[in-house]
């Protein structure tokens, strides 16, 4: 999502000046997405250029008031009606780290997984504490915040489950898949920080 669509969706409620718009955006996203006023005005300029908002002259204290246009309304409706596409990038730092680690001779992969698991569970505990300190939400802004905490909790849980799954998969495979040395480099010429293990044939699969 972009700040642009968020601001536009709020403008759909009523004309706003930049300062109010910024405050509304921040409180409706649980304070997890701070934006500065300059960014808000730059975004409003672009929205105006694209015909999605119009400047309604000066409001109180000489601040420019912005109102959404019909095209802007259509843009908000289209945004709310369409799914968020996450793409299929596999460049998750942890996934890449583990993927690389299983190919390296001399790495205690079980330890790598366990160290990560403890850290992930600690994050989950902290998020759960943050959540348990609040009772049932009483306002829409509270609810928005709770929803964001839940999202982080579920992400951390998914990571923990993936670690469990990876560990079980490795246990099932046993020694059948071995780490390997560098492709095309003869073992005698190899200089690596980790001890080499026997059985690597230097070919990739």
């Amino acid at each position, binding site marked *: 999502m972009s700040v642009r669509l968020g601001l536009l969706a709020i403008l759909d409620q009523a004309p706003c000046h930049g300062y109010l718009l910024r405050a509304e955006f921040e409180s409706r996203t649980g304070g997890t997405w701070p934006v500065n006023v300059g960014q808000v005005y730059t975004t409003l300029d672009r929205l105006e250029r694209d015909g999605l908002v119009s400047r309604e002259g000066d409001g109180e204290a000489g601040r420019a008031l912005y109102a959404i246009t019909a095209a802007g309304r259509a843009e908000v409706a289209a945004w709310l009606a369409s799914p968020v596409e996450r793409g299929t990038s596999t460049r998750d730092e942890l996934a890449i780290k583990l993927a690389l680690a299983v190919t390296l001779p001399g790495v205690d992969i079980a330890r790598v997984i366990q160290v990560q698991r403890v850290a992930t569970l600690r994050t989950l505990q902290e998020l759960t*504490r943050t959540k348990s300190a609040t009772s049932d939400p009483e306002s829409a802004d509270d609810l928005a915040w709770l929803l964001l905490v839940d999202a982080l909790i579920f992400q951390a*849980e998914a990571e923990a489950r993936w670690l469990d799954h990876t560990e079980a998969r490795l246990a099932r495979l046993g020694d059948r898949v071995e780490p390997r040395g560098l492709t095309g480099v003869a073992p005698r010429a190899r200089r690596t920080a980790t001890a080499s293990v026997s059985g690597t044939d230097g070919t990739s699969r």
Partner: protein
Amino acid sequence: MSAAPLLRLDGVSVQYGSGETAVTALSGVDLEVDRGELVAVMGASGSGKSTLLTVAGGLAAPTSGEVIVDGEWLSSLSPKRMAALRRRSLGFVFQDFNLIPVLTALENVSLPLELDGWRTRRARSAARDALADVDLADRASHFPADLSGGQQQRVAIARAVVGDRSLVLADEPTGALDSTTGEAVLRMLRERVDAGAGALLVTHDARHAAWADRIVFLRDGRVVDESRAASVESVLA
């Protein structure tokens, strides 16, 4: 009330069978649970989680090591005194609730007290308070079949903490419940612990283990790690 931990496992090992076919379920486990503390135990299937709970509850004796509940060394207790300790100090919460279907919610909760010799009126009064603590005061006269899964598990929690019982042993208590109901049950258990009970929670669900103050990781019957929640800071800041 003593300052000693509510539950202490001291070098506890459990072996099934003997000789070459012997299986080690637990190996030299040290663990403590204090009052006001919720400790979760996580581990893959076969890591010894359930054995740990069985031994902590005095339902099975360790092959070696000591289990001390509320200052009592379980190995020194006669079967009769062991049964009394289980009635007075321990409460179990299972995945499938284990309520007695022909008794009302109130009767289920007051039963352990009545078995322990409490007068009916006093036991029922304590049970009513325990049900109120889990927000089920208005369901006291319902039978288990007339309660939802989440409500039944809350009755089980009330039964586990009623009277002076202070150590709750919970085995996958949210396993049969949907996501938000499971969370409500954990929140309730957390509240009972904050009110002074101690609890040992066995689960494979990271999201539920996260309600604990400490998470202990078991692998092949050994404690391999522990995660302690840091002080409450805003993680979102």
